[in-house]
């Protein structure tokens, strides 16, 4: 009962956040200089009749708030509007560009967690050992390396010297899974490196403090095997900040994806965002930002619920 009520309040709050974000995006694209009609019409812009007809057609001559409310109404019906420049529906564009970005982000998160959890467990359990120091130093270095700088290095090493992976381009899954994985191997590595470093550092420091708790001592004195203590007793109470940051990193990954997609010429949401900003294609920009905001907020909502499942204390506090 308590969980349900908490979930409903949270959901309402998140709805508010999404509304504010959509309003801000809408205002930003309207307030800032640069008229899509100029881009659309080119030299014909000076022809007043044509210009006004186009503005009428796009609904750009109505008052600001009316435009926003109309936009929201359309969004609620799943209509994000038609791109000014390419004449495609925004939803259609998003559908085309989503697979590459989603594949990249999900795989990046999955691989990073798979790497970070054992690394952190080992590092924390043998803290101050040589391996721990190596892991800590390496993750510190990886946090400091900008994605595009790392990408340069990877392309030089794995595409030029060894010729293992293609330097640019994306092959959809439908054209073969091996080619697909080869095409995203380098961009994925860039994202995974940064993420794994963040997760390992975080989980390591949480684990070190958990391992000093009395219940760990208790478990040890009961003679439980180390592996069991680490996996069953230490990991769960140490994973809360990891989970929080896991959610927040989806936002960071979007930023990373913009750069990485541009670097490796991948057809994703990031390149779509940049193209449409440069072309003043407002409706597409709004669609992209709205999609990102909604997914980010939803993911973090799910993570909030995950807390209550993982931590009985949160459950009781909510009830």
């Amino acid at each position: 009962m308590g969980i349900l009520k908490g979930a409903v309040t949270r959901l309402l709050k998140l709805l508010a956040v999404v509304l504010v974000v959509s309003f801000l995006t809408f205002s930003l694209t309207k307030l800032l200089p640069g008229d899509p009609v100029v881009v659309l019409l080119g030299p014909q812009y000076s022809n007043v009749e044509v210009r006004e007809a186009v503005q009428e057609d796009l609904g750009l001559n109505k008052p600001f708030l009316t435009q926003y409310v109309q936009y929201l109404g359309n969004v609620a019906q799943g209509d994000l509007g038609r791109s000014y420049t390419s004449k495609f529906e925004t939803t259609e564009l998003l559908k085309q560009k989503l697979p590459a970005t989603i594949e990249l982000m999900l795989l990046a998160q999955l691989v990073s967690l798979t790497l970070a959890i054992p690394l952190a467990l080992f590092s924390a359990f043998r803290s101050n050992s040589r391996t721990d120091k190596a892991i800590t130093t390496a993750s510190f270095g990886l946090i400091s390396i900008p994605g595009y700088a790392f990408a340069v290095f990877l392309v030089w090493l794995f595409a030029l010297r060894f010729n293992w992976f293609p330097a640019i381009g994306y092959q959809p899954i439908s054209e073969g899974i091996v080619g697909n994985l080869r095409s995203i191997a380098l961009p994925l590595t860039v994202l995974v490196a940064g993420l794994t470093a963040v997760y390992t550092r975080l989980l390591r420091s949480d684990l070190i403090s958990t391992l000093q708790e009395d219940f760990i001592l208790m478990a040890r004195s009961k003679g439980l095997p180390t592996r069991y203590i680490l996996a069953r007793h230490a990991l769960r109470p140490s994973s809360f900040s990891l989970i929080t940051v896991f959610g927040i990193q989806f936002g960071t990954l979007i930023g990373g994806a913009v750069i990485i997609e541009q670097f490796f010429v991948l057809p994703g949401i990031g390149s779509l965002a940049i193209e449409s900003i440069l072309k003043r294609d407002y409706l597409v920009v709004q669609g992209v930002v709205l999609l990102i905001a909604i997914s980010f907020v939803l993911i973090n909502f799910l993570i909030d619920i995950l807390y209550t499942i993982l931590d009985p204390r949160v459950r009781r506090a909510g009830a």
Partner: protein
Amino acid sequence: MTDLVSPPDGIATNPPPASPASDKKIKTAKKTGALGIGGWIASIWLITLTAAAVFAPWLPLDDPAKTDFSVPKNNSSPFTAGHLLGTDNNGYDILARIVWGGRVSLVVAAGVLIIGMLVGGTIGLLAGFFRGKSETLLMASVDVFLAFPALILLIAIVAFLGADLLNVVLGISLVSIPAFARISRATTLTYAQREFVLAARAAGASQKRILVREILPNVILPLLAFGLLVVGIAIVAEGSLAFLGLTSTETISWGGMINGGKKPLQQDNIAHTAMIPAVTMFLTVLAVNVLGDRFRAAFDVKDSML
């Protein structure tokens, strides 16, 4: 890597309890001085870079905007005569552009640090001290900022306002303000409860005096430690914009150099034009982060001594 909004790991929002990790740091700090070997190397690198950037016009460097096709061709590799780090595909001298690009990074770092600390720090200080509605409003706006993709916001600001250096600095500062405000608020909250604030209040100090004389001096150093972290992120963010080709082409920037080196790297098997700025940037960000890390470790000591 371009996340300016969420407080990064390693930043304790409360004064951290003395942990074995920080005890260890105290011990190593005693051995090699407060900076440690890594800290010294980082400082030397940053000082050299800053000096070179500041005095760039008077250094015996090539004109960074002058093309030289006289040496075999463009894209001559490092250590060719007259060009220590070689030339890029436009025939520009890479060393000169690295130094001049450092100027841009320096301006961005300083600008963002000053604006972020002044504006974000003040907002957080006031919200954490006076609590109430202003605090609720602050936290709500932080939530909105979190849901807004920071890099896309930055790209939009620069794309629409114009791509000169001032707008880039303003844009990055704007995106970093919520994070500064959060850290400043959290630190203020913990100090506002301390006995010395109560003592000052009992002695009849005004709110303003407590805020400026009692709390501010305690908040400013952790904020600066966080600021060093933001400096690294700001340099990367400027580089990202330049890499995406969104900043003015007249501004010489490491990110722009990487962007220029992308095509030779991916299509013509020429690595050095992209690698040199990439490595420079990595070393610089690493040096800033190492110093920030030492700085924060030093504060753990201070906190545990209080």
